[in-house]
């Protein structure tokens, strides 16, 4: 179960809408022990060559962003990205690049409107990702 504050989910959806038809990406920060997202932190998608169906954030840029959040007392719970005109189902490419012990929240955006959001976690053997429920907190 991934818990996310209502306002943060709204900010995430706004980021996905603004970025359409490109994929957007960001960090889910908060409390790992409670599995709660208290802050969404948008990042820059570095895949300028194929932004409609790929995202990437390089190691140093990600490390810097994560250290900034951790300096504010937040932990890294996971990451989010959008799937423009595709379902919120993870792709093989998502799975191949996923880290264990993290939540991967995917938002489906069709025609500029957010349709659906699902969260996934990589199985230990990396064979697939398992959906986890999302609980929206006020």
């Amino acid at each position: 179960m991934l818990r996310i504050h209502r306002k943060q989910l709204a900010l995430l959806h706004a980021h996905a809408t603004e970025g359409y038809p490109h994929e957007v990406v960001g960090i889910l920060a908060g409390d790992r022990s409670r599995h709660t997202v208290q802050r969404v932190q948008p990042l820059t998608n570095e895949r300028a060559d194929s932004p409609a169906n790929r995202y990437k954030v390089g190691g140093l840029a990600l490390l810097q962003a994560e250290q900034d959040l951790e300096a504010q007392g937040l932990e890294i719970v996971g990451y989010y990205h959008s799937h423009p005109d595709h379902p919120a189902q993870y792709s093989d490419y998502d799975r191949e690049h996923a880290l264990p012990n993290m939540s991967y929240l995917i938002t489906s955006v069709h025609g500029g409107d957010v349709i659906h959001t699902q969260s996934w976690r990589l199985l230990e053997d990396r064979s697939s990702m398992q959906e986890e429920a999302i609980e929206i907190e006020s």
Partner: protein
Amino acid sequence: MTVSIRIPTPLRPYTDGEPSVAVEATTVGGALNFLTTAHPDLSKHLRNEHGKLRSFVNVYLGDEDIRFLNAEDTPLTDGAELTIVPSIAGGVA
């Protein structure tokens, strides 16, 4: 010689929660192999089925990406600090 490897948060469950692991090695590849021998469950997340580092796994020696040095053959000196820095990537199939 003894070197340290900094472990990123999502991989710490495989190092008993330790943020840094001391290993004995003379090259970067040797250091990583020492790490995955001591913590075997970590291996599949660092290396693919061909034994190569996964594309999202970046390894830094100090502040230098080993890809711009001599990759896993990069020699180490005593007290060297390695850092595993994941990037994130994905997208519609």
